């Protein structure tokens, strides 16, 4: 009897706790009608943002605030949708957190900002701009649109991103590009490491540049590249037998290699001021 009463009390307390927790998280859902190539921006100081495509001309935003110290504001003007988290006095990284899930038309332009993240975008064809301080940025299965990513420390991972311009700037976050190709692929970092795993496409300009980070470029033997790699102070390694190429960039102090593989369809620059560079054959 005593045991059953104790169990009932525990259950009641659990229910009360869950109810209280649920009350502080009021799920908000927005639906917007838009036209072709809509522009959607989500500004969220704390918390994750995930964006996926949806059929039709609509934008769906589901926001889950973690406390009553943050409110969600929305603005819809014509073909532009803006949703932002507004912190109230006393909010911090925990109480000010909002979890966003967003569905947009596949060709919409998307701007996402979250200081803490993570930020996720997938299967879109429009231009996207992702910004985060320490946010973990993950982008996959994008094509045709331009991809711009800026982080301070947050790591950046792009997977299967093709046919658009890719520009990534991260001060100290590591950047990983897996099967990324396009007319322009540019990565700039100060202390972060850069890893590229792909074939560099059929034509394009690739520039991977860092101050003290290491650069690892892994590419298959059939890659067709005109490559120049240089490090002022670090080592450079190359697994390919390069054909010599005419370049004015080779005559510099430090360690370097330059040459072509295959038909030299794509131009590849691997530059690290004091880090190590390795062009690996997969």
């Amino acid at each position, binding site marked *: 009897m005593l045991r059953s009463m104790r169990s009932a009390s525990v259950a009641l307390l659990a229910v009360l706790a869950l109810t209280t927790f649920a009350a502080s998280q009021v799920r908000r859902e927005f639906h917007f009608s838009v036209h072709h190539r809509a522009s959607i921006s989500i500004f969220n100081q704390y918390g994750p943002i995930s964006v996926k495509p949806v059929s039709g001309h609509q934008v769906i935003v589901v926001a889950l605030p973690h406390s009553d110290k943050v409110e969600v504001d929305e603005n819809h003007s014509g073909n532009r949708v803006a949703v932002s988290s507004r912190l109230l006095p006393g909010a911090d990284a925990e109480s000010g957190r909002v979890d966003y899930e967003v569905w947009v038309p596949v060709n919409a332009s998307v701007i996402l900002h979250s200081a803490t993240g993570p930020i996720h975008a997938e299967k879109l064809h429009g231009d996207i701009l992702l910004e985060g301080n320490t946010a973990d940025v993950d982008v996959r299965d994008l094509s045709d649109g331009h991809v711009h990513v800026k982080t*301070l420390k947050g790591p950046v991972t792009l997977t299967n991103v093709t046919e658009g311009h890719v520009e990534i700037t991260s001060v*100290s976050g590591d950047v990983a590009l897996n099967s990324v190709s396009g007319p322009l692929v540019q990565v*700039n970092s100060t202390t972060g490491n850069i890893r590229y795993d792909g074939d560099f496409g059929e034509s394009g300009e690739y520039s991977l540049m860092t101050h003290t980070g290491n650069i690892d470029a892994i590419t298959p033997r059939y890659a067709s590249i005109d490559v120049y790699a240089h490090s002022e102070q670090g080592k450079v390694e190359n697994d390919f037998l390069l054909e010599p190429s005419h370049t004015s960039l080779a005559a510099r102090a430090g360690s370097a290699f330059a040459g072509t593989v295959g038909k030299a369809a794509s131009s590849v620059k691997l530059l690290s001021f004091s880090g190590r560079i390795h062009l690996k054959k997969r």
Partner: protein
Amino acid sequence: MGCEEFQQILSELEDSYSLEQEQHLKICPRCSALVAELNAIAREAPLLAEDEDPSPRVWNRIEIALRQEGLIRDSKPAPAPVRTIRWGRAWLAPVAAAFLLIFGLLLYQRGGMEPQTRQLVSGTSQPVTTCCSPEDVSAEQAELLKVVAAQEPSLRAAYESEFKAVNAYIRDAELAARRNPNDEISQQYLTNAYEQRAMVYEMAMDHGPQ
């Protein structure tokens, strides 16, 4: 009345004619034609006065043609009095020195030439990566860090380390650019370094008072 007499008084006539003059006009085709012509001229003359003057291009072309023929020349200004003091090119040296001094001071203030890097420039052939010493945040950045800390104290340390990292990048990039001023890669490093710092500033200011 004969034609000679009629034409002598014609200039004195206005719109009205005497009976004798009218009869002469009726029987004399020569005088009537003359009167008709004079009347036509009198009608057209006011219209000619309303025509615009020739466009300036016409006058320009006339001027050019006259100059080519040497019929008009520019009047030379009176020569200025000759100064006895000749400066020559001696003024260039102090001006260039002042410019270099100002440029150097600006670079120093921006953290481009810390004392330890000055030694490196004179001594070694390779740059040394100077990173992350406590002095590597400028006064301006220190102020911005205070603003960030006021809004979000937990981010202050992160921004401080980012500022130090990009400052070190800029120092190394500037050294390399000075050593190889025409080198494309050095210029690219410098551009990237400043872009990185600009991004840190931009993100830090996003944390400022809303």
